[in-house]
């Protein structure tokens, strides 16, 4: 099998080589399609670079695999569960719009305009987050706009590696400010039971306006923890099935793509602070376990706060970073009129990450 494919591979490889040298020989074509070709080529072929300085062998783990692992984890964490809960007609078009607008339109045109050499893999991860943090019944154009904003914002700041705050969350913040009505509506009751074809396609058509957190704000009602954990309570498209999110995040932590310190300190501090406040204030604030299992906390703590670029680099500072996220989340949820605070908490701590990092480094090296 492998042997018989070898000649085919060779032919393909040769043609790709030819295409590459053709593109490089014509500056105008290179200007328009160079980076697109690079991106496609680098997906299916290895690189040409060899190590020129010591050490002369390098590990075969690169950024592409790193981002690929996050994509796989997200697919198992929210895409498959939400296809079950809301039907594929709700999930797949959103994902497609997000990828097409974010990566293939904005990122490619940015690469052309700014004359970047390549298209970054990080765009896929950001675009995968966008539908997950919007309500299930939000219009498609909102997803597209969100993806465009996220990628544009990231590129303006200098691309992957330079983004100050999580681009996906930033664009969600932008959408919240511009279209507040759209982001509190469109929550759907998830489908439960053995799915038939209709359910797999559309899910249930019951629209609700309340996520468990808003419901709690309004009348103090708490759904069963079990339904929150399995994802049968309403919420944003990708945040509901906490079980799947936790499992895939554990896999990410095991292969060291996500750092375990941040989720541990984030969830731990949410638990501690909400316990503290509910001991003092009683029923007026949400109890700890409900806080842990509701809203975007699990998705945020395991996937967004752990985004290595926007968190701190120093390992000790990561504890502070996570604890800060948790504290702000609880403050917003308990003492403001906003039902959910994860987005604000992570964005705020992203901004604070730089001073925390430099302080931690100063303390560690005594300078």
């Amino acid at each position, binding site marked *: 099998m492998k042997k018989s494919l070898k000649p085919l591979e060779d032919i393909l*490889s040769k043609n790709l080589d030819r295409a590459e040298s053709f593109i490089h020989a014509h500056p105008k074509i290179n200007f328009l399609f160079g980076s697109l070709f690079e991106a496609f080529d680098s997906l299916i072929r*290895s690189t040409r670079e*060899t190590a020129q300085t010591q050490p*002369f062998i*390098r590990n*075969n783990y*690169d950024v592409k695999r790193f981002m690929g692992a996050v994509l796989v984890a997200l697919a198992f964490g929210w895409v498959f569960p939400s296809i079950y809960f809301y039907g594929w007609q709700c999930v797949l078009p959103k994902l497609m719009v997000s990828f097409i607008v974010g990566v293939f339109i904005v990122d490619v045109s940015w690469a052309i305009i700014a004359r970047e050499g390549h298209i970054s893999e990080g765009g896929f991860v950001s675009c995968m987050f966008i539908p997950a943090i919007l309500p299930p019944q939000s219009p498609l154009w909102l997803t597209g706009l969100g993806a465009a904003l996220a990628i544009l914002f990231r590129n303006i700041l200098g691309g992957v590696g330079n983004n100050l705050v999580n681009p996906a969350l930033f664009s969600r913040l932008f959408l919240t400010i511009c279209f507040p009505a759209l982001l509190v509506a469109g929550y759907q009751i998830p489908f439960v039971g053995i799915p038939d074809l209709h359910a797999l396609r559309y899910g249930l058509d019951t629209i609700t306006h309340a996520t468990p957190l808003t419901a709690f704000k309004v009348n103090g009602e708490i759904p069963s923890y079990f339904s929150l954990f399995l994802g049968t309570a309403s919420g944003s498209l990708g945040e509901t099935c906490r079980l799947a999110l936790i499992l895939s995040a554990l896999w990410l932590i095991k292969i060291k793509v996500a*750092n375990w310190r941040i989720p541990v300190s984030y969830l731990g501090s949410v638990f501690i602070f909400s316990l503290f406040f509910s001991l003092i204030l009683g029923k007026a604030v949400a109890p700890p376990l409900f806080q842990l299992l509701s809203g975007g906390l699990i998705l945020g703590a395991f996937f967004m706060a752990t985004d290595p670029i926007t968190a701190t680099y*120093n390992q000790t500072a990561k504890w502070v970073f996570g604890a800060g996220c948790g504290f702000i989340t609880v403050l917003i949820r308990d003492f403001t009129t906003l039902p959910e605070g994860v987005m604000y908490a992570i964005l705020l701590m992203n901004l604070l990450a730089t001073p925390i990092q430099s302080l931690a480094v100063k303390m560690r090296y005594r300078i």
Partner: protein
Amino acid sequence: MWKEKETIGFHGGFNFLDTYLVKFCNIIEEVSSGSTPEIFKYSIPDREVKYVIVNLCPTESWELPNWAILENKTLSFLDKLGEIRVRYFPKAHFFIAINKKEDRTIAEAMNYASNAEWMKIFALDQKYPQDDPVLLTKVILGTDINFGQDTMDLGILILDAQTVSAIYESCILGNKVNSRLIAISGTGLKENEIINVQLGTSVDKVLHYRTVEAGGYRVFVNGPLRGKEISDLSQKIDWSTNNIVVLKEQDSKVMFPMLKSGELTFTTNTHGELRQCIYCNFCDSICPVDLEPALYYHSYIRGEKHKARLYNLEKCIECGLCSFICPSKLELLRINRECKALGKKL
């Protein structure tokens, strides 16, 4: 007196022996230089030797494996060591570091050590760079030495297996030692071999007929991690040459690299493009001396090379693991060296 099979170590490091499997064939071939070979000379240090560490724990897969010297000869090897002790270092403590996985050697050595007061056996993890002098003295003796410092300053002598045998042959028996064992391996060779080479033979002659015909290759003396690349193959082999690695220069693209990692692994390819640092923490979790190499990188690209020295840069033992692991393929080791060199000038 002997220590229980102890597992002590350091944080970080990388297990090369299991990642890059290099199998050597059992037959040891001879290569002669064709001219008068050089003679191995060992000058016994004139300073007082308090500790002798015998390093039987190679941590790179392409290094000369222990069995080539010790196979079925552990006891006679230890006897030789004993005689060297009596003759030259009567007051010194001997520490023998053996790879934790080599159960038989450890058992034999422990058995021997139970009657020999003067030596202790240490079973160490086969993690690179366990055999670096800085880590070896830290793990075994608990003493800190600086990178690049001569261990003899503290009265510590580090020997490898082959040097011990050669000292015995030349200094005690009075024989002439004019050849040594060398491991040659890599994807640029037809076969991985262990050869007995006369000192003074050129690398060219050793690799003759042994390299693959097609495609380019690059030659590294003492391994691609810590060793040097040599372009001039007429260089002569001396006692410090432990191994020669010939790697295929993989400078063309390969289809579907995800499916055939084996084909690319042991080559000079970087397996990815140069990207910006993504703060993934791979480099600081692999660093054997707990540094944070990304800090140096960021000082460097901000144009503040002098700042790198503030972050304990002088502790870096230049093992190269940070460059090896970095998914963004940054040249961290080169940056470390550049920043260090700047520090010396100031």
